[in-house]
């Protein structure tokens, strides 16, 4: 696993693109063949599930290291990473031994289902031979948390360089469902591609429009606008006589949405659509949580389907009658898609994402202002003449999200963070006023820059009132503006309120704590949101549908 451990470290240590490319190239040229395939599987999220539960691993590692459990905990709070904590605390191996990545993975797979005592014995044996610098990837595999912090585009680029192929072709071959043990390296990098009938296309992703559409080149008529749906991005494949649904995470999710089988026969043979799965009832999208309930199930009962009906809001056509349609201009793909959706004539399952006419950008601003009423997160703006790309590339597809809701809240508790900011206090709990007391109501993890994190941490160190385990309790001094995307009632929170995507928007150093918001303000917002049905006129956005 030496080559893989070195790659893992190199990708972790630098964010310079050319250095990362060098490391990937070196790995693809030198690592054992089976390890290369496993690396591709791991980096694209096809990682083996957890073998040992976190609690067991902590306990056993603490004993191996000869320290009490609380000291292991303290160490964990500083590193913010279980695999790293274990890797740093274990004593040096007795007789280090080089084994390949695939050997280790095979061994780990054989431990699945072992009784606890044997599992522990196996792990101790492994610790005796595992070289020190291979510990980190080993424990990431063991805890099922293996992730390589590198973009898919970069890996495809490096692999394309080794194979002498186009990165887009590499991306296509590695999209969809495959297993490293069923794939062989030679065919992966062969000049001619094999059977791709079950594979989705790499998804094209939008980048954010910060200032507004005025920054886009060309005239408004060169662009197309539609709602940004708050659902699950998915491709619908109809190639082999049955319908398949693939999520953006490249998971086959057909089984969770069995009703889509009804579309078979209503679409042209060998067609692939791109769109958003949306829970949709009474003429409007339902809350995203409802959709998650559907996605979380391996199958769906009739009553669940009736309670939470889901449809595909289609917005692109990637394959048409067996032909790769991605290089056609969006204008044409859209026109063909409208024809397909209309002919399918099944609006309970398939609708076209409505076009939002924008003769000028003022109209786009107006549409965006209505996004929330639509249950949408803002607008998507796409270049009329653009082909369908792969991955996140700036230039043709933009998302222009609505401004978030905000609330001024008081910092109450802090906890140390994970990842890049491990060891620093970055997990904050905020409160708002209810009468004379502060009511903790939300957590937020991100949004501060490094300098602000440093300042808050210095202040926390000098002003901690009390510690409760990993949590420090702070005096009410600092006000932060918290941004969020949605608000709902929740019985799980003491405040009775749950925010969606809360994050720190601004540090309001100018605001005294007394001027932070009160619970009543959020209650008011909550009732406004609850009242909001589709506004007059928006229902006929679907008038183009049969």
């Amino acid at each position, binding site marked *: 696993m030496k080559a893989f451990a070195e790659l893992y470290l190199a990708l*972790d240590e630098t964010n310079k693109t050319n250095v990362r490319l060098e490391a990937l190239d070196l790995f693809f040229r030198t690592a054992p063949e089976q390890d290369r395939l496993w690396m591709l599987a791991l980096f694209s999220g096809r990682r083996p599930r957890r073998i040992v539960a976190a609690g067991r691993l902590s306990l056993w590692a603490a004993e191996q290291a000869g320290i009490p459990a609380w000291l292991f905990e303290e160490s964990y709070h500083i590193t913010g990473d279980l695999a790293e904590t274990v890797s*740093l605390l274990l004593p040096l191996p007795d007789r280090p031994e080089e084994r390949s990545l695939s050997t280790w993975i095979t061994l780990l797979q054989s431990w699945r289902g072992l009784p606890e005592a044997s599992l522990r014995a196996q792990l101790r044996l492994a610790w005796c031979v595992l070289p020190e610098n291979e510990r980190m990837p080993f424990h990431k595999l063991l805890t099922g948390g293996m992730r390589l912090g590198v973009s898919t585009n970069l890996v495809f680029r490096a692999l394309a360089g080794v194979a002498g192929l186009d990165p887009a072709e590499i991306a296509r071959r590695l999209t969809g469902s495959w297993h490293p043990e069923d794939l062989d390296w030679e065919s992966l990098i062969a000049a001619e591609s094999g059977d791709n009938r079950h594979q989705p296309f790499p998804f094209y992703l939008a980048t954010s429009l910060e200032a507004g559409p005025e920054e886009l080149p060309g005239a408004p008529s060169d662009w197309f606008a539609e709602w940004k749906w708050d659902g699950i991005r998915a491709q619908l494949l109809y190639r082999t006589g049955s319908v398949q649904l693939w999520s953006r995470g490249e998971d086959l999710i057909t089984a969770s949405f069995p009703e889509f089988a009804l579309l078979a026969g209503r679409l042209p043979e060998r067609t692939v659509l791109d769109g958003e799965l949306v829970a949709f009832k009474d003429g409007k999208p339902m809350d995203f949580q409802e959709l998650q309930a559907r996605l979380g199930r391996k199958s769906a009962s009739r009553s669940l389907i009736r309670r939470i009906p889901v449809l595909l809001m289609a917005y692109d056509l990637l394959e048409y009658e067996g032909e790769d349609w991605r290089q056609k201009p969006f204008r044409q793909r859209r026109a063909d898609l409208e024809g397909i959706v209309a002919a399918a004539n099944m609006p309970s399952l398939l609708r076209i994402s409505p076009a939002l006419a924008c003769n000028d950008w003022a109209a786009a601003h107006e549409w965006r202002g209505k996004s929330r009423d639509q249950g949408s997160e803002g607008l998507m703006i796409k270049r009329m003449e653009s082909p369908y790309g792969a991955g996140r590339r700036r230039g043709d597809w933009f998302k222009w999200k609505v401004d978030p809701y905000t609330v001024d809240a008081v910092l109450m508790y802090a906890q140390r963070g994970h990842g890049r900011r491990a060891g620093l206090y970055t997990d904050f709990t905020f409160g708002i006023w209810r009468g004379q007391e502060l009511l903790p109501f939300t957590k937020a993890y991100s949004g501060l820059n490094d300098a602000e994190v440093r*300042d808050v941490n210095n*202040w926390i160190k*000098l002003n901690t009132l009390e510690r409760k385990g990993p949590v420090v309790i702070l005096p009410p001094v600092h006000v932060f503006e918290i941004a969020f995307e949605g608000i709902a009632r929740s019985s799980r929170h003491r405040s009775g309120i749950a925010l969606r995507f809360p994050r720190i928007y601004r540090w309001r150093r100018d605001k005294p704590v007394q001027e932070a918001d009160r619970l009543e303000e959020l209650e008011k917002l909550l009732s406004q949101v609850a009242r909001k049905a589709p506004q007059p006129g928006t229902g006929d956005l679907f008038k183009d549908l049969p």
Partner: protein
Amino acid sequence: MAGKKLHKDNRHLSSLHGCLHLVAANFEPVDLLTLTSSGLYCKAGDFYLDPWKPVVRAVITHGHSDHARAGHKAYLTHRETAAIIRHRLGINSGISSLEYGKVIRLGPVKVSLYPAGHIPGSSQILLEHRGDRWVFSGDYHTSGFSGSHGFCTPFESVPCRVFVTESTFGLPVYRWPNPSSEFDAIQRWWADNQKSGRCSVLVGYSLGKAQRLLHGLDPVQGPLFAHGAVRNMTDVIRKLGYELPDLLSPEDLVNRKVLQQGLVLVPPSAIDSPWMKRFEPFSLAFASGWMRIRGPRRRHAADRGFVLSDHADWDGLNAAVDASGAERVLVTHGFADTFSRWLKEKGLDAEPLQTLFEGESGEIREGSLPEDDPLTEPIPDPRLSKEPTPGEKGKGKRPS
């Protein structure tokens, strides 16, 4: 002097001279050292150890800015630290120096210095009074591995009843790899950069870390450059008799090819400055104990992190406490709560002591107070006012 009328109850202390905060709980007035708002105070001898506010008599462990501050009337310190203080603070009078192991009397208290292994001149301070022995260790580095890499006088254990120890790296995840393997890794990184035509920029604090690096690096690899602050400090250290390789000034060169072959030592403050532009393209690396952990490595957006510290690691701290034979241990800056709990479980009378020392945090871009900035405001002690009223607490040390 502050601290003359010590009450047992800490809460009354804030009235004394308007700014007195006693932080350690259960601190008895008979103690040889007490904590005041100006720093650690020895009442019996009427002097302070590494005070953070201007005082009349200060005994100083070493030359780093969080220990040797400006504005005291009289300084007492090791000869090498005296030279460093003269350079850093630009003062010539009022500094008395003492060799390791020699005893001086301050009132009834016998004061002597012993090597701390942290940076040149760094000392532990032994206080002897009526048969009681206290050691204040300042910052220290035990030379578990250092051998040939220890470039300053190695740490010497001093038997005492009460040991005041730092705890910068007081967690078991902080264990230093063998320094020679880290230096090998630096040389390899340097060689790789040379091959790719990148300059090697290595970040380390200009006092201590820079010289530790210079001592361990092999200058045969290529030209060694340094930022002006590092060059000046290295000149001061060299005059003390330390043999260190010559350093070139990057400002004198116009040939980029030469720079790309070189390794440059820069202090953390230079990282984001326009001065760095001349080295592009470069690879940036930090040398610090914090580089043991992935989070800080990533946070500093460096290309590499080398685990080289001027401080004791977990094993070193434990070894130092054991060797002191102390029955009571007061744990200062770092992981004071954690390390003191660990010592307590081992059967020692240990407790945390909240000071304003920073340890190695000042070396990298986080959590540091501005260099040489005497604190002008009292630090609010949270334990003195359990029930803050909104708005009032903010008058203390607020991040700016």
